[in-house]
């Protein structure tokens, strides 16, 4: 395989992403878990850059690495009961989960391996933010508006659920 800059970048980013995710699984300190997950999200943003999805990468950093990670850390802080995560008390469940996930992984990787018929490179000059904007306010205008209602609903819902009672 020819070693290109893209390959090296992909290699580093994916190792980072996978490590972050794996550490999340194996860490015992809950805060560490959150931080390692943030790393994964950041690496995914890098992957998006590699795939010429600049706008999405920026959004990924802002929403995931920024907002959601911080939100989750807040969540961990505010609901912290114990600092460390304990192991599951259900060994059968645990091992079945690992086995099931293993089978899934094997089949998905085998599946990806078979993706040879997919064209390998494409002209991505047109993948600019302007084009995305056109799509959003053209073809996908209706789902776009719908998404705004979705966010409104999420906002209202979060407020209801998270609000402390008895303040008034």
């Amino acid at each position, binding site marked *: 395989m020819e070693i290109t800059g893209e390959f090296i970048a992909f290699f580093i980013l994916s190792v980072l992403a996978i490590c972050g995710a794996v550490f999340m699984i194996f860490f015992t300190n809950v805060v560490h878990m959150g931080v390692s997950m943030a790393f994964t999200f950041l690496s995914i943003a890098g992957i998006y850059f590699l795939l010429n999805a600049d706008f999405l990468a920026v959004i990924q950093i802002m929403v995931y690495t920024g907002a959601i990670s911080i939100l989750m850390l807040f969540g961990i802080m505010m609901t912290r009961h114990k600092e460390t995560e304990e192991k599951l008390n259900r060994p059968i469940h645990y091992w079945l989960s690992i086995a099931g996930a293993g089978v899934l992984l094997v089949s998905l990787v085998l*599946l990806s391996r078979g993706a040879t018929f*997919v064209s390998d490179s494409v002209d991505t000059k047109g993948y600019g933010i302007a084009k995305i904007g056109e799509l959003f306010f053209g073809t*996908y205008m209706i789902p776009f508006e*719908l998404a705004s209602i979705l966010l409104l*609903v999420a906002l209202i*819902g979060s407020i209801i659920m998270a609000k402390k009672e008895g303040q008034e």
Partner: protein
Amino acid sequence: MNKVFAQIEWSLLTPETTIIAGIVLLLLMDLLLPASISRRWFGLIGLASVLGSLAFVISQLPLKPAEILFGTYRLDPMSLVFKLLFLTSTALILLVAMDRKKADKTDRYIAEEYILMLSALLGAMFLASSVDVITLFIGLELLSISSYILVGMRKHERLATEAAWKYVIYGGVSSAFFLYGYSFLYGLSGTTNLFALGQRLAEVVQSTQSDLFIVAGLCLMLVGFAFKISLAPFHMWSPDVYQGASSPVASFLAVVSKAAGILFLIRFLLIAMYPLLRSEVWGENMMWVLAILAAVSMIVGNTVALRQQNVKRILAYSGIAQAGYLFIIFPSLQSNLIFVSVSFYLVVYMLMTIGAFAIVHVVSKDTGNDGLTSFDGLYRRSPALAMAMTLFLFSLAGIPLTAGFIGKVSLSINAFASSHLWLLLSTLFVTTVISYYYYFRIVQRMFVGKATSDQKVSVSIFPALAILLVVLGTIGFGIMPDILLSKLETVKWGYGLIPLEGIQQLKN
């Protein structure tokens, strides 16, 4: 670009905009009215906007199929029927939901509750009128996220929050499976339009002789569909969530959410997958998958229901079984007739489920719990309620003279007429017999059990109206099903499954 927008017939969207207007109005009222004013009548605003929307939908008749922006919004007979179904059920559920406890702890979120119900409805309506996966997905998520919160609204109750949590996680996982699966199909087709998708997939299969990615994608997506429809073994969230949610919300999930999932599945399979389903191997495989899901649902739903002590859980399991009944017809996807049966059964299912949950709501409000015991001796206390509940349960069980019987007959007939799935039908018959047991158990408790108090169960005017309407429907469609069936038979279902140009060609 501006010209394009000017040409689009935005007036098609009036039913949806009416709902949005209702949401905005509720938000503003809640904001502007002083806290001291009771918000209990807000339900009327919600109801008004639903009824307004219903009127607009009806005013779109006689229907001219139309599309906006490449099918991201589309109006065809299928979407119209399902919208009518969603709107009617929401209207009935709103009537029930207006009956609230005195000084309920959730009273301060009364406006939000109606807003969320309307927004969930809005999601379902957009889902009903689209053939674009993005709109379908966003509509589905709007429905889901609104429902998550609706379930957890009574946040001072442990059961409610726990139910909401389970719903979010299960819903999230199935969304992830759905998206992951669809990503493969996108990779093959590069489109989000269902018609283009179907065409492209058929070409791909022909040119590469491989359908591995399609199978993988479809299997992954099925998790998402089966979750929404609560088909076993992807049903496990539903009993817990129904129990934790308030009864009106549970009936909303059981009816609107389920019907939306079914519509999505129908459109997806019959538009995007249809070219493949017609091929022998593919069709056969898919037939078996759906048949197994249906059989497992019937068996699991009906047997586990036997062990339940909580009425809402019983109804949840019964809903799982009902989804299974509905699916006996799907293995024979070729037939156009299935739509008549499916839509008729959905209407019937809507009536009896909303009715049953409405009574659970009224009774549990009175007794303070929704266990089986709360129904003890209901006949002595409120004969009318007990009779209505008996009717709904009989209808769910498929006893003659109720709409449920006709629904089951019409499903079985079409399943017979177009396929040879004896196994599925035998399962239907056998599990129906099993189901008698737990339905009768409730009936027995109502008529024979000893009531803990002699007081009448108080029912306020709105839920009484809803129950009355539902009773009339259940009996009416049971005795004179032709009122509805003949209407449904004239609907041009096929228009919902072909591109707009195709429809215009057909018309000329």
